[in-house]
């Protein structure tokens, strides 16, 4: 054996564990899609998919968003708040103002009646209006993004069964470059058909299916959340903020759990208080934000009930390089307003409650 052959033999190593390879590529996939948006790759329409909304925060995820919209990733919703002045790139601990407001909202939440949690045979009904960014990936010249308006109603049973009704409006191109990309792609139809799907037990479940089992002690809840024992995901306050939002939107979180979530959020470094803002429907609320990677993820909370009223995702600073067009600061990438919420007795019933109870 000559020296080269000997050297080569010494370079023999055990192959990478298939689990590590797959996990890494999966995390990369999520990071890629996250970085390029908030967007998702076009994908074939899945079978009944989990309903839970995931706010696209920064960094890789270990669990991909799974949602009914075949083309799109759900991007956060926004509260339009033209009067909101964001501070991109801010870091450090939560401002005392943000922490104080979240603690106040926690107290408000704890004082709410527990009637918003559906019992056996009942459903949590939520009606929302939103606009989500959807990106269709092509080559360098024919990739484009649009904002797709949507009206959404969901009935979530205690056993995870339920119904999801969605209808879509006329998409709006985010920029002239996006329109040019669409033309280069052959000007495909952007219309999306309305849908009305029913789900059996467990069909609308994703993540913690029984929120009633989560601790309502802030320290215990925070420990679980930070350790990613509730949802998977990367470490860090940005992801913590995302997961707090995940547990608030379209869930039957009890007032006590909501109170604990606000207290957890109050201790997250980097959380900002936006003050009084208005959501996309023009309703006043309290804005809480987390800025990461040039994007601001904002939650709008009802000051008198602590309920989540709306959300928004927008560009507030330099974003990571990607093949996506660079949108100017202030560009809104998605928003949602929760118009009504309440406990109903069937998937045919709805509530006209104007104040979200979720």
């Amino acid at each position, binding site marked *: *054996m000559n020296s*080269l052959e000997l050297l080569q033999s010494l370079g023999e*190593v055990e192959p*990478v564990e298939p689990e590590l*390879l797959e996990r890494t590529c999966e995390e990369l*996939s999520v990071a890629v899609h996250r970085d390029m948006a908030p967007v998702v790759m076009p994908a074939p329409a899945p079978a009944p998919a989990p309903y839970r909304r995931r706010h696209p925060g920064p960094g*890789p995820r270990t669990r991909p968003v799974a949602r009914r919209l075949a083309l799109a990733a759900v991007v956060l919703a926004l509260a339009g708040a033209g009067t909101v002045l964001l501070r991109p790139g801010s870091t450090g601990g939560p401002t005392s103002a943000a922490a104080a407001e979240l603690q106040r909202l926690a107290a408000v939440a704890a004082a709410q009646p527990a009637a918003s949690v559906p019992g056996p045979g009942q459903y949590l009904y939520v009606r929302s209006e939103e606009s989500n960014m959807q990106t269709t990936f092509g080559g360098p010249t024919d990739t484009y993004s649009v904002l797709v308006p949507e009206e959404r109603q969901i009935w979530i049973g205690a056993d995870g069964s339920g119904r999801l009704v969605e209808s879509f409006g006329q998409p709006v191109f985010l920029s002239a470059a996006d329109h040019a990309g669409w033309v280069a792609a052959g000007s495909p139809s952007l219309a999306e058909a309305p849908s009305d799907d029913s789900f059996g037990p467990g069909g609308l479940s994703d993540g913690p299916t029984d929120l009633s089992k989560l601790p309502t002690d802030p320290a215990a809840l925070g420990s679980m959340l930070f350790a990613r024992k509730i949802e998977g995901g990367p470490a860090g306050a940005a992801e913590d903020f995302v997961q707090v939002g995940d547990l608030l939107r379209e869930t039957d979180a009890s007032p006590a759990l909501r109170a604990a979530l606000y207290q957890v959020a109050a201790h997250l470094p980097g959380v900002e208080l936006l003050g009084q803002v208005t959501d996309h429907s023009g309703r006043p609320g309290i804005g809480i934000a987390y800025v990461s990677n040039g994007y601001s993820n904002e939650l709008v909370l009802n000051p008198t009930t602590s309920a989540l009223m709306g959300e928004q995702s927008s560009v507030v600073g330099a974003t*990571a390089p990607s*093949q996506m067009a660079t949108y100017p600061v202030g560009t809104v990438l998605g928003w949602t307003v929760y118009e009504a919420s309440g406990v109903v007795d069937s998937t045919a019933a709805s509530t006209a409650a104007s104040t979200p109870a979720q």
Partner: protein
Amino acid sequence: VGTDEENEVTAARTPRPGDLTDAGHFVDLCRRLGPAVHAYLSRRVGRQGADDLFGEVWLRAFRARATYDPHQGGAGPWLYGIARNTLRAHWRDAGRAGPALSAVDRPDPWDDADVRLDAQSQRAILRRGLLLLSPEDREVLLLVAWERLTPAEIAVTLGIPQGTVRSRLHRARQILRHNIDSTSPAPSARPVTLSAQEATS
């Protein structure tokens, strides 16, 4: 070096313009070349270190994808370059961690490789010659022997001219020939040739 791994890297040598501007292709690249990248790391920092750094390499690669030029040797050498930069950062960080990690003060993969040599009772044979090599020459040699890269690909990986690669390779080969093969207990009857790739690239 496994056959499959070699095949994957070879396949990635074929320039495919636009590969990394497509998110799906980039993730596919992770699946195709992941084993080769992990092996590169494992040879230099061991299995555990490779596991720890593997994800970072891919995130770095994604962030740096604009630097990928499909006309400059394909994705394999480019990825090895990213992995190399990740290793150098790792070694720098480890060096700052304290004197207990003095072995990694130098960003030199031989310190780790030497452990395996010793384990395989081949240390006396190779160490003499390899320690005579500069870290730069040794790195080129290991890329030929372990990653089976051509000089052109090594030039992409290291970001240096091909001529520099060839001179380093020539120098390393000469040292090995004169200081190792001549004293090997079972020398090859044929002359040492580092790689057929060297002659064809």
